[in-house]
């Protein structure tokens, strides 16, 4: 049923460049520009994972880093990585991924029987159980619980890849390259300030990658293109794609992770796989956008439920009939939040 969920046109994929990949041992085809998540949905694969405790079936909820469900074991051997969100894996030719924490398979998972026992396994239930004696806990219960623990598997061989660091400074750090972040970066760059703009996605634009709006009298996609071009032309502007800002520490010290190689291309000192950016900024602008929050109703975690409108249409419009969308993410309410941290020296803006 490959391609059964695809629309004939639109989206951010290149239909002239098909890519082969494998999920749970079965071969599929996607396109350049897909994430593993969008490619799986396009192929009609909705059951991606099982929950940690009751092994309930889990599908894909979102389209980005807010994905709570669709975690997979990516690649094999020394390059395998556990618990990577399918929504954050750009598809590449030869990608191999599998469901985590299932036995023997995600469709038929023995531990799903835990779900039937859920009335007896309330939060913290194990603090009151498994302890008829200390010996029973030591010899029987704990080993069983431990065996069931965890999601994916750690590699068992040393990491063959090369990683890198960078320590940089700027006047203005902008986190998020949606309309708010791009505008802020452009305004700051125009003053000659040293600007760093980081976004976790492979393309700048944020919500404008899927919304078609009008900004400064032109279609928003054109506005994004011209703004990014303008920023790239500034000598003092650094643009970081596929870069997740992971921490904001004292005196505007930030840590960000840049994903530089997304496929199995071997890394080297000349071409590191990931780079940690240590950033000291005089001013920080957080324009990270909205975050998908699921609505609360029974079985809202079942495959086929998608949170908000971002879920399906980021990479390609998919046939929506089989999907239900429920969520509370509204891109239009996303404004720039400005964080001012006392700085005794004024930025040369």
């Amino acid at each position, binding site marked *: 049923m490959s391609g059964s969920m695809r629309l004939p046109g639109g989206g951010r994929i290149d239909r002239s460049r098909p890519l082969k990949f494998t999920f749970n041992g079965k071969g599929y085809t996607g396109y350049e520009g897909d994430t593993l998540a969008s490619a799986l949905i396009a192929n009609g694969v909705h059951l991606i994972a099982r929950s940690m405790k009751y092994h309930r079936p889990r599908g894909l909820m979102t389209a980005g880093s807010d994905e709570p469900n669709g975690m997979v074991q990516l690649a094999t051997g020394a390059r395998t990585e556990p618990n990577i969100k399918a929504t954050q894996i750009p598809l590449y030719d030869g990608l191999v991924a599998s469901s985590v924490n299932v036995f023997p398979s995600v469709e038929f998972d023995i531990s799903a029987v835990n779900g039937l026992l859920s009335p007896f396994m309330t939060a913290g239930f194990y603090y009151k159980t498994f302890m008829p004696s200390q010996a029973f806990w030591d010899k029987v219960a704990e080993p069983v619980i431990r065996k069931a623990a965890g999601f994916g598997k750690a590699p068992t061989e040393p990491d063959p890849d090369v990683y890198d660091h960078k320590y940089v400074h700027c006047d203005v750090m902008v986190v998020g390259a949606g309309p708010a972040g791009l505008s802020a970066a452009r305004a700051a760059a125009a003053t000659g300030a040293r600007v760093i703009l980081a976004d976790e996605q492979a393309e700048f634009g944020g919500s404008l990658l899927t919304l078609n709006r009008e900004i400064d009298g032109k279609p928003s996609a054109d506005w994004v293109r011209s703004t990014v071009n303008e920023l790239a032309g500034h000598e003092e502007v650094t643009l970081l794609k596929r870069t997740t800002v992971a921490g904001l520490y*004292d005196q*505007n*010290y930030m840590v960000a992770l840049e994903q530089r190689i997304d496929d199995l291309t071997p890394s080297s000192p000349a071409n590191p796989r990931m780079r940690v950016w*240590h950033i*000291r900024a005089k001013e920080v602008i957080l324009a990270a956008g909205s975050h998908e929050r699921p609505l609360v109703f029974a079985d809202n975690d079942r495959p086929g439920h998608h949170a908000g409108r971002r879920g399906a249409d980021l990479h390609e419009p998919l046939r929506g009939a089989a999907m239900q969308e429920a969520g509370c993410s509204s891109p239009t309410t996303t404004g720039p939040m400005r964080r001012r941290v*006392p700085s*005794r*020296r004024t930025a040369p803006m």
Partner: protein
Amino acid sequence: MLLIDCPYCGERPEIEFSYGGEAHIARPENPGALSDKEWADFLFMRGNQKGAFRERWIHTQGCRRWFNVLRDTTSHEIYAVYKIGAPKPPAPGEKPVAAKKPAAKKPAALKKGAGK
């Protein structure tokens, strides 16, 4: 990674500095005259303030000079840096202290014209 404004070199990352704990603990003029309790007070007892705290840092990897920092231990905000012997800058909400003469004397060897 705190950003510390060395009074000699300017703003530098915490990793270039070493910490010296509470500032303004004067070594007793005559240690031999102290009781055990007074000696313990000097050696071990500390203010450990929550909030504005006066502390010593040394720019180990840079100019290798000790200096004082007034920092908030709840927010890590640095209110002031000042050289050893300089008047204490007031903490937020604190009255400025009248300038006193530096407690530490300049080493004789570095006095202007010494030995002439």
